């Protein structure tokens, strides 16, 4: 196991552990409550409109939209962390076979691992008051991931023999 393999495999398993504990916490303490609140807000929007209270209906629908956005971002955070963890481990198993110098392989692995933490973390920050900072982190993370994966895929195609 070379340095690039270790960086990716340890980061990948670490990401998976993080997201699985987050998933447990989220399922127990947040998900049901958020879903119930979303349903309640949406129904309230219609009920208020039925009582000719359009302002009240809009307020309830605003609340629904905010909750739906928060729910989507929390689910995305969990899902992207898990998917990126699996991706890191997968590239980690073959990183030493890429057709590059060792230095470039380690740099690409480091960029991929850092971006894989940054991107979902940015998505998560967007659920709170640090929305704009979260957006910047998510964009930086996604750019880093695209570059790192591009380098890895070209490396796979460059290497005549990919393992061993």
């Amino acid at each position, binding site marked *: *196991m*070379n340095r690039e*393999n*270790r960086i990716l*495999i*340890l980061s990948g*398993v*670490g990401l*998976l*552990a993080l997201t*699985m*504990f987050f*998933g*447990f916490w989220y*399922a*127990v303490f947040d998900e*049901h409550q958020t879903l119930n609140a979303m*349903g309640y807000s*949406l*129904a309230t*929007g*219609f*009920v*208020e*409109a*039925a*009582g*000719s209270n*359009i302002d009240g*209906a*809009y307020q309830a*629908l*605003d609340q*629904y*939209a905010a909750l*739906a956005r928060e729910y989507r971002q929390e689910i995305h955070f969990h*899902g992207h962390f*898990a*998917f990126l963890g*699996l*991706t890191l*481990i*997968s590239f980690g*198993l*073959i990183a*030493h*076979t890429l057709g590059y110098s060792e230095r470039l392989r380690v740099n690409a692995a480091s960029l991929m691992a850092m971006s894989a933490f940054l991107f979902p973390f940015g998505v998560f920050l967007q659920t709170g008051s640090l929305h704009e900072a979260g957006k910047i982190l998510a964009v930086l993370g*996604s750019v880093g*991931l*695209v570059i790192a*994966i*591009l380098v*890895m*895929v070209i490396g*796979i*195609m460059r290497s005549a*023999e*990919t*393992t*061993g």
Partner: protein
Amino acid sequence: MTSTLADTNTGLLSTRASRLFAFGGIFLIVAGMLLGDVFAIFILHPNNARIGENMYAAAMAIPSGDADAILRYFQEIGGFLENRGTKVAAHTHAVAIGYLAVLFAILQPVIGWSAEAKLRLAWTFVLSATILPFAIFTIHYAGLAFSPVSFIGWASIVADIVGLLAAVVVVLQLVGLWRYFRSAGATGSVLPALGAPGRLLLTGGGLLLLGGFFYGAAYAAYIENLLDPGELEILRNIVSNAAAGQSVDADFGAFGGLLAFQGIHRATHAHVNTMGLLLMVFAFVQPYVFLSEVWKKRWARVLVIASFALPVCIVLEFRFGLIAGGAADISGALAIAAILAFLFGLVRQTGVQDNAGGQS
């Protein structure tokens, strides 16, 4: 060139722990994909139609001020959403945790625990991972029956417990990796040479992952900056037009279009990525698939074609509707057939290794 820690006699299928992870993982992947196919054919579209019908009926109850009817319709919608949500979650959790199990099988030679401890961890993980999607699937049907608490049912409680157990095993695998990497002589690859079928799967998987990342980035940028009108604006139009006694048909048309747009793009993005990972995971097991090179190449081609076709067919649903949806289901079925062929080759390999005394 790096030396290898594993060859076909000492790697993936050489210990009981790695076999358990490998076969448990492949079982979960196949079960998850089958559930996805069945869900797409029999539940997804009828369920979406029922949600739309009930939402429309709720809007129709606004002009008469019938709040009880509105709440009744939303109760129904909640049930349909739970039905859909739990099926999707069971599908995605089974497939993702199946991938992880196969990757753990490959990593077993570099986990720094005793063989006995590794086996115990493998049993805990595979049992938890198998129960998890089943429990999620059951949430909609079990409801709150016999539940010790008033707000979540037994199925949710079981899913939470086994999810936590699986997470603990992942942490222990991480600690095992750390222990191994800190030890002297921790060099070499855990994979033997993949061969031509493995390289085909690896390249296909890498390209799909790359495409999936571009697709996701483009979709996120479009949703964030260009999508108009958004969900909130459409919902506001529905309630205000209904309250004024005006037609809401155009608003519901826009609402249905928006949900289809989001649903299809999200499904395409998710499937490009998961099929990319599927190809990579099955590239890694190729050295252990005891089939002739010719048949390994054939099944590898089938899996690559199916993996590219599935997300393409999903996105074509915009233009061709259910015909493209049917083609996506056929692609999924083809991928399952290729996986079963590889599974057959892996089972044969265990016989070869056991005869040679290779399992510990």
